[in-house]
């Protein structure tokens, strides 16, 4: 799905500070990158494609502009892969 419609739940991206605008105390590796920001909200434009400049209404009611990067952004974190180093601990404790 590349097209978002009005009121779809979307994520937008903004560059807050370019590398040369960053705070003086930032370490060099971080300073080489811009400060980026992502915010989610309900799309206010009638229709938009990924990469378009759009406006969203956030959960706190703010209206924020930015580049559309995701439509229906999913929470991708999970319970990970089985970790053998952890699984064996329970067995050891019972043998103990």
């Amino acid at each position, binding site marked *: 799905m590349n097209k978002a419609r009005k009121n779809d739940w979307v994520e937008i991206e903004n560059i*807050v*500070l370019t590398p040369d*605008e*960053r*705070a003086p*105390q*930032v*370490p060099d*590796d*971080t300073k*080489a*990158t*811009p*400060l*980026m*920001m*992502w*915010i*989610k*909200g309900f799309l206010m434009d009638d229709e938009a494609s990924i990469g378009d400049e759009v406006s969203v209404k*956030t*959960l*706190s*009611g*703010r209206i924020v502009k930015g580049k559309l990067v995701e439509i229906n952004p999913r*929470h*991708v*974190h*999970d*319970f*990970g*892969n*089985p*970790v053998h*180093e*952890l699984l*064996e*601990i*329970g067995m050891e*404790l019972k043998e*103990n």
Partner: protein
Amino acid sequence: MSDLSYKAIMERKNEIMKNALGIDYEVYEYGKIAFDYERMMKENSYPMEKIQEIQRETKVGNTPLFELENITNLVRKYAPKGKGARIFIKDEAANASGSFKARRAAISVYEAQKRGYKGVIAATSGNYGAAVASQAAMRGLKCIVVQEVYDSRKVGQPEILEKARKCEAYGAEVVQLTVGPELFYMFLRLLEETGFFNASLYTPFGIGGVETLGYEIANQVYEREGKYPDAVVVTNAGGGNLTGTARGLLKAGAKDTKVIGASVDLSGLHMASDKDFNRKSFTTGHTGFGVPFTTMPDRSDVPRNAARVLRYMDRYVTITQGDVFYVTELLAQLEGLERGPAGNTSLAAAIALAAEMDQDEIIVVQETEYTGAGKHPMPQLTFAKSNGIEIRRGDSKENIPGKNIVIPNRIDQIYLQDLDMMKLRTDYVRNITVRKDI
């Protein structure tokens, strides 16, 4: 439109802060470096009964205290003869939003509502965000949580991604940023834009909210055992958990209880580094916050930090990332409590401390936190592996932050590293003199 550049916003910092908090910190300053801490606490927080009442209104406090008999028995198996104190744990995961942070948020959000603010903002990647969101939901206020979550590849720690989800679940807007101290800049910008209340972790009412935790521990142990605990172990990062708990213990009369701070050792990793950011498996409770906040508390998002651990801490120890994952398994598999790893930092330290203490002594682990997708040993170690961190079993001494996570083979391989309290105090004084240009 006002100037939104980094420099311009930072220059308006004091004015923005004053509007967003309503506390004039200047009245507490005196002499060249001093300020009246107790007066600040007294005039900007509430008496114990009032804090308890506020917290009761929003499902916070009176959490259970459990004795961990199976872990205690295991400690005694390896401890020197006669050693192995009884370990108790305060199940703070039972608070609304799943951590002790609800105690802090409860008072901040109450204050915001009382003073007529329409919403609250907090800058946090941790449990505090969910706590503020949950409290704001109950009091009908809007809420924005600003997180430092991604590196420049937009890769985020699973633990922080989970916090974002939880904040949204309570109806909060989440503003997600890449790594860097400009989190504070964005926080100020949002305070200025919205006129919302600064629900900082470090205000007197934020710390006052934690006092009930120490107070409950003292009273619960006294009621059950006829004495106050010999030691309470507190995970230390920004210092509020330790400061508030210690003040609560004192208010309950537990004057002889030792207060021990514990942090995960992350020495050698730079907290604001894009490359180091995802090479750690703990986002809080570690030395990267604990040490600088101990020796320079006024680095936070308020002019004077009410969290000042050197006033209360008897001892400060570190343990490793591997230790914490190991004891998280112990808590689940021996005690039937599945809880989040970060909250078990103090449990790891308590296990090693108990082995130094007599069997008739009592040591209390003063928190647990909720667990779930992302905030759990499996996803956190999966993430570490995907970032090139070696995961293996071994002796805890082999842990090197940012390179490996070594999960101990046995309970007696959790070793305490003591931080030099005198050096911390000296650094504290030196930092003030540098800051005040003396």
